[in-house]
């Protein structure tokens, strides 16, 4: 149980900063184009193909993994969107030279705390579901792959504004 809490904390530490540290990083679903859809699909399919190879998954595990992750993603995406909205509210309230509305700030922070708990609950739910068809080692491998993806997305986003990212060794 203790190791699971550490596992949860690690994941939250890896994923949530992507959302929390960049209030301007609004999701692009409202303006997504066919090219972006195609690239997201391609990234996901390549990610799953790598997972299958590295984790040694069979077809049945692959089908279950895809379905489980899609279910979790729906919940996760909703939480992340709300976190982005609240971060935008906080950024608005903390603009220099403008007095912040304390009740708005308090409510936003309280809601952010609730959302972080919800995020952890979704992670626990995901692990519980994955444990139904993945071994602990496979779950850990999948967790590491997701963590690497989140890290790389964070690096790419930090390179926004014309900075070039250091060359990264291909996996």
């Amino acid at each position: 149980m203790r190791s699971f809490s550490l596992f949860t904390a690690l994941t939250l530490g890896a994923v949530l900063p992507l959302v929390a540290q960049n209030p301007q990083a609004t999701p692009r679903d409202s303006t997504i184009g066919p090219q972006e859809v195609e690239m997201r699909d391609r990234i996901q399919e390549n990610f799953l193909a790598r997972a299958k190879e590295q984790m040694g998954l069979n077809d049945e595990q692959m089908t279950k993994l895809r379905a489980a992750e899609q279910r979790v993603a729906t919940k996760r995406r909703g939480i992340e969107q709300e976190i982005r909205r609240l971060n935008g509210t906080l950024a608005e309230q903390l603009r220099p030279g403008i007095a912040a509305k304390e009740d708005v700030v308090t409510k936003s922070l309280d809601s952010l705390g609730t959302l972080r708990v919800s995020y952890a609950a979704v992670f626990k739910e995901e692990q519980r579901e994955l444990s139904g068809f993945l071994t602990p080692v496979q779950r850990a491998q999948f967790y590491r792959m997701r963590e690497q993806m989140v890290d790389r997305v964070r690096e790419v986003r930090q390179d926004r504004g014309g900075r070039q990212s250091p060359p990264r060794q291909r996996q």
Partner: protein
Amino acid sequence: MTEIHCELLQDRIPEVVSGRERWSAEEAAHLSRCADCATVERLLVATSALGRDVEARFDATPAILRVAERLRTEGRREVSPVRRHWIAGLVAAAAVTVAVLSWPGSGAAPDFARQEQSFLTELDSLDTAELAIIADELAPPLSALGASEGAEPLDLDSTQLERVMRSLEG
């Protein structure tokens, strides 16, 4: 004999020239003696004759009818506030229709289902160029490209060869 004042007489010259009034004997005598009043009279007689032949040839009735028709036509083009609202509504509806029809995908409805299929939610905030970076780095494994173990290198397509080269480069 009544004294004739030049100023008063000159004020009456237009009326007399137009035929609405006539000079009295005293006024006529004054005009024959006063060079200034005679000059003004000749000037007004001359100017009153200008364009008289144009006026004689100009048929006012058709012109009036054309002007009236033009005013009616222009009046119809004037958009009432109620019509403006209808037009604005139609323009908005057209804009929505165009937006829906030009939404990515072949169908008229937004492709929400495909968006939900992506479980890598961290990709949501990346733009096209950033997605391309990730897509380029995350190439499919060789096993997913369908290369069999016994295949000769020359049997590989360009993508497979590129993957082999990458793996050799480490």
